[in-house]
């Protein structure tokens, strides 16, 4: 029993490390998908104990144009801009017209996706996803 618990905890730790590594690698990925005209927004994931907060900066998007969905453990945020944005000051992207945001994130394994809530204010989106509660099993 103790061995199983240890192995499961170890597997969990490895899954979490893989997720963190993937997140770290994202720092070096290009931020504009030129083909789709989508840009990855700035975001942060905050571990707030009994919940996980995902904060996303979505300037020039309106509340009605923001879509948040959770499929399995993937959080997807999409939002279209009120007007297309030209990144002419960055020559590499000079010919790209950005029309929306897209963010895909892998969430920690213990979140309760169905209880997630989101608020949007002044172009900032905050998604609150509670963690599943652990409960004590009575040993007979």
């Amino acid at each position, binding site marked *: 029993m103790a061995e199983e618990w240890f192995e499961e905890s170890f597997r969990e730790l490895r899954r979490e490390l893989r997720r963190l590594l993937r997140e770290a690698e994202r720092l070096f990925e290009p*931020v504009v998908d030129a083909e789709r005209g989508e840009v990855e927004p*700035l975001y942060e994931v905050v571990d707030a104990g009994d919940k996980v907060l995902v904060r996303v*900066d979505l300037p*020039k998007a309106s509340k009605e144009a923001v879509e948040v969905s959770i499929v399995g453990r993937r959080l997807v945020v999409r939002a279209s*801009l009120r007007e297309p*944005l030209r990144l002419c000051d960055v020559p590499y992207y000079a010919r790209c017209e950005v029309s929306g945001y897209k963010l895909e994130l892998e969430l920690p394994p213990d979140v309760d996706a169905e209880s997630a809530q989101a608020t949007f204010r002044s*172009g*900032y989106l905050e998604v609150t996803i509670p963690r599943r509660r652990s409960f004590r099993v009575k040993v007979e």
Partner: protein
Amino acid sequence: MRDWDVYELREIPRADYLIVGMPDVGLVGLIASTYLARTLGAEMVAYMDSPHLPPVLLYHEARPHPVMRVHRFSTGERSALLLVSEVAIGVRGIHSFARFVVEWGLSKGVERLLLLGGVPTPQRMKLEKPAVYGAGVTREDVELIEKSGFNLFREGFVSGPYALILKECYKRSAKGIALLAESFLNYPDPGAAAAVLAALDPLLGLKVSVEPLLEQEEEIRARLRETMKRTMEAMREAGKAYEFAVPAMYM
């Protein structure tokens, strides 16, 4: 080439203040200093260069545009040099940069260094008007902060290039104040930049209209996303996370 060089484009008269705006928390310093230089039409009088700066050459209006520029302006009886840096300096360059900036400023006869920046707060999203804190070096700085009505930064950490500039001032008993507005850590924050600019009024007698800055807030946030991302990497390297740590003196 030395660690840091300054190229003066004309003779620079003595100035009362050296104002520094670096990309840092919420890009507050960069946004505030760029807006200030543009709004006042402040002439570029010098630029700084170093092997510690990224190998990039900006172009503006078909001419090379140094990434670390010094402008000069006057407000009635007061004059100021304004250092605007478009890029964050890596951790290997910030010690020599801090020494260089303080030495150069003092050589220009400046009475006080003013550093424009942000102090991250997790509650920023709920704040309509961010508060401004003043972190001073000398007794006169603390008196000026209190007289000007800012919150005195009493306990906590300043980290990154501003920490080292303040430390250089401290070593030389030079006057220096960091004006830090409550801001987002990792999103460009024009609202916090506007709060810092408003705080210049009691110090410099400089009323800067921040309405145009606030009107363009979302545009600025959208355009500075890439700069914020690069700045975050430099901040991580420079130990910005220390600002959230509990200092040993509280234990």
